[in-house]
């Protein structure tokens, strides 16, 4: 088949160029996809159901009715300033209140964040708990609250009236 031969040649040229460019520039790794190491970067061996999302992509989703932001930091930090419209779920004893889970049920995407302490350990843990509760699309915000503020996206202070 002549077409198959042509397709093979096109593929060989493309793959060869791709490998060549990759060798020259370096192949990207998944760890590189996030911010610098130590700055709340996604770990290489992240739990498979926990996805990460960059501040810009999270901001693009922030106006949607079916997208919820959840703050995993202590309540007093939430009161001092949080992503506009976010719910508060402090990761203190490693559990998520059932009332909060009920509040989130209408959301298709849940974006959790904290500060960058221990590479986002609190928000990663919260994301895992929400995934266990049946949420299929839970994201951890890369860079957490500091990255959100640095990008100049909307934040507000005050208590969470809806939160349990």
């Amino acid at each position, binding site marked *: 088949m*002549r*077409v*198959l*031969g*042509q*397709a*093979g*040649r*096109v*593929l060989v*040229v*493309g*793959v060869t*160029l*791709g*490998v060549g*460019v*990759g060798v020259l*520039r370096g*192949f*990207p*790794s*998944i760890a*590189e*996809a*996030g911010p610098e190491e130590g700055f709340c970067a996604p770990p*290489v061996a992240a739990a*498979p159901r926990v*996805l*990460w999302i*960059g501040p*810009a*992509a999270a901001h*693009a*989703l922030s106006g949607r009715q079916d997208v919820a932001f959840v703050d995993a930091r202590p309540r007093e930090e939430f009161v001092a300033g949080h992503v506009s419209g976010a719910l508060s779920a402090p990761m203190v004893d490693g559990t998520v209140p059932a009332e909060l889970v009920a509040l989130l049920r209408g959301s*298709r*995407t849940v974006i959790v964040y904290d500060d960058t302490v221990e590479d986002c350990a609190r928000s990663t843990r919260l994301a895992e708990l929400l995934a266990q509760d049946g949420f*299929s*699309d839970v994201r951890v915000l890369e860079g957490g609250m500091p990255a959100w503020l640095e990008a100049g996206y909307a934040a507000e202070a005050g208590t969470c009236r809806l939160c349990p």
Partner: protein
Amino acid sequence: MSSVSLKLATPAGRWATIAARLAVAAVFVWAAVPKLLDPAGFAEDIANYHLLPDAAVGYVAAIVPLVELVVAGALITGLEARGAALVAAAMLAVFTFAMGQAMARGIDLSCGCFGSATTARVGWGSIARNAALLVASGFVVVAPEARWRSAADPPSP
């Protein structure tokens, strides 16, 4: 030559083939450039599909945009155009499968179709676009070779 090819060997058929080639090529260039500019972002988009082992993601992220560019170049120049259209169709089929399985699993993710520069989500719109491109690519595969210089010429007797 098959009956399909015979029907397409008219001036109108040749122009239609060239239009299909250019349409697919334009989308492939548009898709490849942002991926080349931000390979790490594209790698992240691929990883979010959870279809490939982590070790393979970087290689795929580096190779896919170059294959897209070579396919586009072949479709534009007409050199090995039918083979390039076959590669384009195969790539589109794989991309569409990846999107379909993500939607079936209820994962709302950035499709990565045009690199990480856009925030387009996987959805019926992106699947419909791929299906249209798949049809255009298939059309080029079954059409007779149509070079620029011969496009307007009447078919030889």
